């Protein structure tokens, strides 16, 4: 590691809160100062952020039409089965 282990550990513990913007401004500044001097931690933050972004991009499964039809039939509301709005 290119910096003291304890500082890296503190960053990893706060990683989710940092990414979600749920930490104090003071801790945020400390993390950013740490990242400026620690390439490994910068990479961990960037790649964790990208991992979460990829999760959103991966989220493209549509409900199959036949599954939707059976769902409405199961609840006996097939009379309300209109073409799904775009």
């Amino acid at each position, binding site marked *: 590691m290119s910096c003291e282990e304890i500082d890296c550990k503190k960053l*990893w*513990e706060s990683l989710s809160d940092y990414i979600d913007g749920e930490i104090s401004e003071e801790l945020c500044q400390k993390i950013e100062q740490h990242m400026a001097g620690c390439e490994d931690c910068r990479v961990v933050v960037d790649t964790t952020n990208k991992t979460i972004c990829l999760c959103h991009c991966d989220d493209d499964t549509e409900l199959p039409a036949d*599954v*939707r039809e059976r769902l409405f039939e199961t609840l006996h509301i097939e009379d309300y089965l209109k073409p799904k709005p775009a």
Partner: protein
Amino acid sequence: MVDNISDEFSLEALRTGDKAEFARLMDTYSTPIYRLALKMLADPQDAEDALQTTFLKAFQHIGEFEGRSSLSTWLYRIAANEALMLLRRKRPELSLDEEPEEDQPPRPFQFADWAHLPEHELLSGEAKKYFERAIQKLPEKLRIVFLLRDMQGLSIKETSEALNLSETAVKTRLLRARLNLREQLSAYFAERLSQEEHK
């Protein structure tokens, strides 16, 4: 985001059995709930079963919905329970109960800087399949938290309500899930980076 959509539904109409309103609710939430079930169960038939049971239970129990959480969180709670129940039938030893979490998050081991790879590399068919497998490799108690928070966009509070866990437990599991997935993806993309360098 989730609350705004919930507000669009008339609870009064749902409680009095208004089928048109229920159909509208189903058309809004059936796709995200199917996605959640599919990613939890990795089986289209099981996902369909969980989807149907979720809305059957919602239809039967809407009168008991007290509005302490949003309507969507209530639906996700039913869906998560159904998915976990199906998993428990296959693996009775599975437990999601709150239990002492390990204090320390896992230490990162992969430091390949793949975040700057071009989008066509990050979103290639092969990369997407690898990502799917990586999600499936997450332990169930981490996977459900990751899916609700990062895929469905629930807040920490909503995720804790949906899973009946403390917010601290949700945060701990979310961090472990994110680090686990990052580690798996880093191993995959490090190979892509290495191939790029040798071109």
